[in-house]
């Protein structure tokens, strides 16, 4: 098989000392930021985006992907040991994981999370290797109207999935798209949404937006919500899984993978949904229902596997279609763009060496992460001991540093602060930030596809619904937005009738 030979060539390149080093840096950094509360993989990749001016494309993309994978591993350590979980995708594992740690089974929880992440990550990366070329074959027949429709699907599903309500998700999305449109329009030369500020003519840099929304906005939100003291639960017991725990874990790992990878691989968003699904599946299937809510190992094993499998899944539409469906994937896409590379079906023919090296490095990254998170988990536990005041002070320094790194000025710093204030407002109103980041980066691409479609049809909007595939995609997009409210309405009607 052709793809297999290319993958082997990719392994050859990925195993070069330089690429191995960047994979290692990526997974180490990723685990660290996954562990640390208040800083996640999207923010970290954004802060490292300026490195793309210095590094070779393969090296920095291997590092970014490592950060993405590592963040998924690291998040589980925090959710198990800290009483205040970090990122949204690991909240579910905190349900049972923190209970297990409190009951003195922290080591088993960490082990099942790490091994489960490895199993799921590896299976899902195999899935990525096979599904991505297939998706490329399908996507090669797409024209601009199909791409535009696909992007609308990604927009609406990300908005519907990544927030507490569809409306809030859409608000976040629209804000992101709006910020993404700031600057000179390439085709007409018109300045858009620049408010007369000359520094805005070039648009707002991705780094500034992501750092502002995540770092500054988050910090203000934490400050204004008052103090909440975190406690770290000490790890007790053996670092390896006992035979009983292993027997209870392996099926949830595989089920979590089976849920996580396909959902992640859809050009629709979210690592959260598979973790929820996996948790409820394990709760229903368990032979120990009495343990759920008090620290059931299945409740950690399943969601953690789902979490990692969906991370690999998300890379399928990112690489094969150029569609980011999570905040981190969107920032990684921005990294590709810095090299003038546009992910999508052509990537696999024009930059096939890069793609396959990247995919091979994911297999290697998973092995590195297993080592980092099983025998060496103690290091990460110590990271949790960093007092929040030093942590946030450090984050603030690095957040502003990101602005200098892209050649920014004092004006850019104030733009960063304004976006930070916006990020705080979003948190106050419970509007999710992730759709904003996806909208920011995908918005201009969608505009480009829309304009291309209209250029082909000479302004006839009918081209957008000219093929059955387009129409089908718009139906999916409409369903993503309309179904959740309708379902809620039906449920409340039913509840009202029952009462």
């Amino acid at each position, binding site marked *: 098989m052709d793809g297999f030979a290319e993958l082997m060539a990719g392994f050859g390149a990925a195993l070069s000392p330089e690429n191995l080093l960047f994979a290692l*840096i990526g997974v*180490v950094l990723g685990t660290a930021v996954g562990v640390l509360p208040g800083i996640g993989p999207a923010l970290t990749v954004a802060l490292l985006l300026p490195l793309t001016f210095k590094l070779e494309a393969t090296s920095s993309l291997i590092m970014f992907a490592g950060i993405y994978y590592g963040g998924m591993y690291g998040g589980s350590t925090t959710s198990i040991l800290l009483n205040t979980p970090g990122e949204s995708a690991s909240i579910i594992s905190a349900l049972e994981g923190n209970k297990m740690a409190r009951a003195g089974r922290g080591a088993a929880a960490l082990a099942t999370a790490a091994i489960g992440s490895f199993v799921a990550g590896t299976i899902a990366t195999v899935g990525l290797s096979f599904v991505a070329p297939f998706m490329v074959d399908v996507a090669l027949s797409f024209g601009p109207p199909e791409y535009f429709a696909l992007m609308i699907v990604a927009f609406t599903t990300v908005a519907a999935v990544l927030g507490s309500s569809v409306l809030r998700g859409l608000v976040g999305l629209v804000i992101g798209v709006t910020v993404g449109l700031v600057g000179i329009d390439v085709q007409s030369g018109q300045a858009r949404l620049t408010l007369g500020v000359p520094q805005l003519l070039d648009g707002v840099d991705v780094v500034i937006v992501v750092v502002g929304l995540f770092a500054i906005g988050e*910090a203000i939100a934490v400050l204004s919500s008052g103090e909440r003291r975190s406690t770290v639960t000490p790890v007790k017991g053996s670092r390896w899984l006992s035979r009983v725990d292993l027997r209870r874990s392996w099926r949830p790992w595989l089920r979590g993978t089976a849920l996580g990878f396909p959902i992640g691989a859809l050009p629709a968003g979210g690592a959260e949904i598979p973790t929820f699904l996996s948790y409820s599946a394990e709760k229903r299937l368990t032979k120990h229902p009495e343990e759920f809510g008090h620290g059931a190992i299945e409740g950690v094993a399943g969601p953690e596997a789902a979490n990692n499998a969906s991370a690999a899944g998300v890379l399928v539409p990112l690489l094969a279609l150029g569609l980011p469906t999570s905040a981190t994937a969107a920032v990684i896409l921005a990294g590709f763009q810095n090299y003038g590379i546009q992910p999508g079906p052509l990537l696999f023919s024009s930059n096939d060496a890069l793609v396959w090296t990247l995919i091979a490095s994911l297999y290697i990254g998973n092995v590195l992460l297993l080592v980092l998170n099983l025998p060496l988990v103690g290091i990460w*536990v*110590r990271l949790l001991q960093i*007092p929040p005041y*030093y942590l*946030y002070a*450090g984050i603030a320094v690095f957040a502003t540093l990101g602005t200098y790194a892209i050649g920014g000025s004092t004006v850019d710093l104030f733009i960063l602060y304004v976006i930070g204030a916006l990020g705080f407002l979003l948190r106050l109103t419970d509007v999710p930030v992730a759709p904003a980041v996806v909208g920011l980066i995908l918005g201009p691409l969608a505009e480009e596809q829309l304009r291309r479609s209209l250029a082909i049809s000479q302004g006839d909007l009918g081209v957008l619904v000219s093929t059955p595939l387009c129409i089908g995609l718009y139906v999916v997009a409409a369903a993503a937005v309309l179904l959740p409210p309708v379902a809620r309405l039906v449920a409340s009607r039913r509840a009202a009738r029952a009462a």
Partner: protein
Amino acid sequence: MLLALGVVLGSVSLRGRHGAAPVATPADGGESLDVGRRGAGADGTGEVDAGPDSGVNGDAGASGVLDTPETSEPGVPVGEDRPPVLRARPAVRVAVFVAGLVAHALLANTAGYVVAALVLFVAVAIAFGAPRLLRTVLIGLVLALVVFYAFRLGLGLALPDLGGR
């Protein structure tokens, strides 16, 4: 109130080097405990900057965490149980945070990056309830210097010099 909480938690976890540290009595001048804690502090700065390598050797203080025996209160509180430099309402804390950001932007091109970053670090740490002003200033200074030279030597990008450009 925080102090009282600290004493309670501290006495519950009166074991392990790190567990013992948080006992916050007014008489504790701090110097005797500094060795262990300085480790934890250095970890704080080193980490954000370089990744976990510095976590390995930077942290002598927290090694008690992994082998703490059974406690009735499962959980080691993060940070020190000392009164913060600033005790204030959230609104005031946010104001201090924002003041630090604005001061940073204004100072960067006039007083230079290191001063600006130091001011930012200290302001944010205080807004987040850091105790021990002197230690915070020292950590901030080290971080600012490391970042300044790492940028200049590593990336070849010049941050504003001392005294501005």
